[in-house]
């Protein structure tokens, strides 16, 4: 049975993302060259400024050779600006920007393992799964696995409802992925600009 958490917002088990006073949940989108050792350099910037990372996702981006980091954290805007500037300062980081919740389309995924006997006993369980638009991806006599993809609050709402019924055996959430709502692709713009600069440089030496 899941323990009751109330005030810890990073464990994935608590009832809600409670906003700290004066702080906003920012999503940082960071693009870098695919060089080893960058992740620890980026996370070190957060540690130094005493900001906790809420979630982190790293993978290849749609631009070949470019890695994308999606990092969320609570801080004020000055700090978000400082963090992204200090991250961008790393030689192999291409760009770092921060966004508020309304500036990005967000997706997270989650899995809830619930007890099959209890699910069969209590009709509310499958009703909750249904109204949350979640799917049961596996059932066996001991447990069932529910998958829910969506925004943070929907995932937490599903979890909280199931947890109230006492059927949750395990709960896991992924880091966040997101795309920006802007019509401009800042990364492409930047890289294009840089290619022009590279061409200007070409007569002086070979460039990377």
């Amino acid at each position, binding site marked *: 049975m899941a323990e009751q958490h109330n005030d810890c917002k990073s464990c994935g088990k608590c009832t809600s993302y409670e906003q700290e006073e004066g702080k906003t949940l920012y999503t940082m989108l960071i693009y*870098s*060259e695919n060089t080893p*050792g960058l992740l*620890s*350099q980026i996370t*070190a910037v957060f540690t*130094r400024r005493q900001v906790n990372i809420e979630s982190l996702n790293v993978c290849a981006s749609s631009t070949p050779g470019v890695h994308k980091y999606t990092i969320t954290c609570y801080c004020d805007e*000055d700090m978000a*600006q*400082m963090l992204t*500037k*200090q991250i*961008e*300062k790393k*030689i*192999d*980081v*291409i760009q770092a920007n921060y966004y508020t919740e309304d500036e990005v389309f967000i997706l997270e995924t989650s899995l809830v393992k619930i007890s099959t006997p209890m699910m069969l006993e209590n009709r509310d369980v499958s009703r909750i799964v249904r109204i949350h638009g979640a799917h049961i991806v596996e059932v066996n006599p001991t447990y069932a696995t529910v998958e829910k993809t969506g925004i943070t609050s929907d995932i937490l709402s599903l979890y909280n409802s199931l947890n109230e019924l006492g059927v949750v055996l395990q709960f896991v959430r992924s880091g966040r992925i997101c795309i920006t709502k802007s019509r401009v692709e800042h990364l492409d713009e930047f*890289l294009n600009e*840089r*290619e022009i*600069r*590279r061409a200007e*440089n070409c007569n*002086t*030496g*070979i*460039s*990377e």
Partner: protein
Amino acid sequence: MKEQISGAEALMRSLLHEGVDILFGYPGGAIMPVYDALYDYRKELNHILVRHEQGAVHAAQGYARVSGKVGCAIVTSGPGATNTITGIADAMIDSTPMVVICGQVGTAMLGTDAFQEVDVVGITQPISKWSYQIRRAEDIAWAVSRAFYIARSGRPGPVVLDFAKNAQTEIFEYESKKVDFIRSYEPVPKMEQTAVEKAAKMINDSVTPFVLVGQGVELGDAREELRALLEKAQIPAGCTMLGLSALPSDHPLNMGMLGMHGNLGPNVMTNQCDLLIAVGMRFDDRVTGNLKTYAKQAKIIHFDIDPSEINKNVKVDLAVLGNCKETLAAVTELVDKTTHQHWIDSFKPYEEKEFNKVINKALNPTEGPLLMGEVVRKVSEAANNEAVLVTDVGQNQLFGCRYFKFSKGRSVVTSGGCGTMGFGLPAAIGATFGAPERTVCMFCGDGGLQMTIQELGTIMEQQAPVKIILLNNNYLGNVRQWQAMFFNHRYSFTPMTNPDYELIAKAYGIPVQTVVNREELDEAVRKMLATPGPYLLQCAVLEEDNVLPMTPPGANVDEMLLEVNS
């Protein structure tokens, strides 16, 4: 041109390709192939054997600071590499271009706790501009060129190359490379014309503008451009410790040093001006004091090359990004020729007050033991105010920076952001190689000298003409001063039992003299400067002297103490 050579030799070629002609280093197991190759390149690459790896990095820093070129240090793996850490951190915070090459165990042994294996990249990443492990010979030309490009471009800084042994011994087809573009790295942000115009307007609208001059002016080679702006609009200026020689000390618009132990006028006026114009400085806490009250009345413009400095400590009204050589010139075009005579004159009473209460006493004592201030000024003047000042850390540094005078650029070599005791002696060695035509005067304390005293061996071997002025107060004076002022005179472990420095100098064959009496000082300084090569001048100074004025830690920038309350 392609040729089969070893990785070690490729390093030599790559260094030459970057224009390197001097290395400060110390050999050891994991860098031996490189040292073997170096044996054949002794003519082209002047290798200075230091006596401790910390000496190598500080020497490279001293070299870089006076010459503007990239300093280069080369050391072995493990302890050789860890001994460079202080210098790397120091170069990072003081924006000094340097490349440190460390040996590393072969890639097959990485991660196995092999003999003298240390995770150098892991350790140095947070304190360097770039840190990279060379694992294959094919990467050498690229990595070395990239390292030098990163170290010297934009806001300069230290770069670490961790050079695996197998890459040193591999034979491969070498081809020289030149990196001068990295797409993810924009060393100099584009100057924005709108920012330039806004800055000019703010300056033209200001009645009482004040400029803060930082080391960025030196790094950007923008001394002339700074002067042009100051003189055209008649704006008074104060200099940070690292920016001291960016503006001649005797320039009528130079109001003195900023910061905790700076001059009264510029600190007080920071909180009275209506426009603060910061150029290539980073609002360090030793400059600002209490941020909550810092220049709140003023609009602030920040000229800097590093976007991450903007709004970091002090929120500014306008940022002018770019190389200040370019941005200052552009703004100067647009500012009105004016005078601010009344405003400039208003610094005078503070100057006089400081002179009467502090400076006169420090420079012109008539009785009692020698004072650090008078020694510093004597040396400065005897060298025509044209020498390079190198300092260690402590009271010697603060008195050095307060009372040395500068007429040329790139003349201050001191550990600012890190405050590294032991920096002075090796940095001065590097400075003699970086500016061989200049006189290099190094002031240090009895504590700091002993932190890297082994470099007297390097001085002896190289006959490096370092004029060492030991300001001996038999105390860790700066800490003792704080104990006196803030810890009830409880001198916890600050009295220093000293060796006989004359004997030490003699052991290294370095000419030495000790001055105790004021009457002997002139002649002793003259003799030191007239003696070719190295020299140690020991001055027995007042033991419990205090550096004043002082902004106590955390106090407001305009709340300077002119005397120690007893």
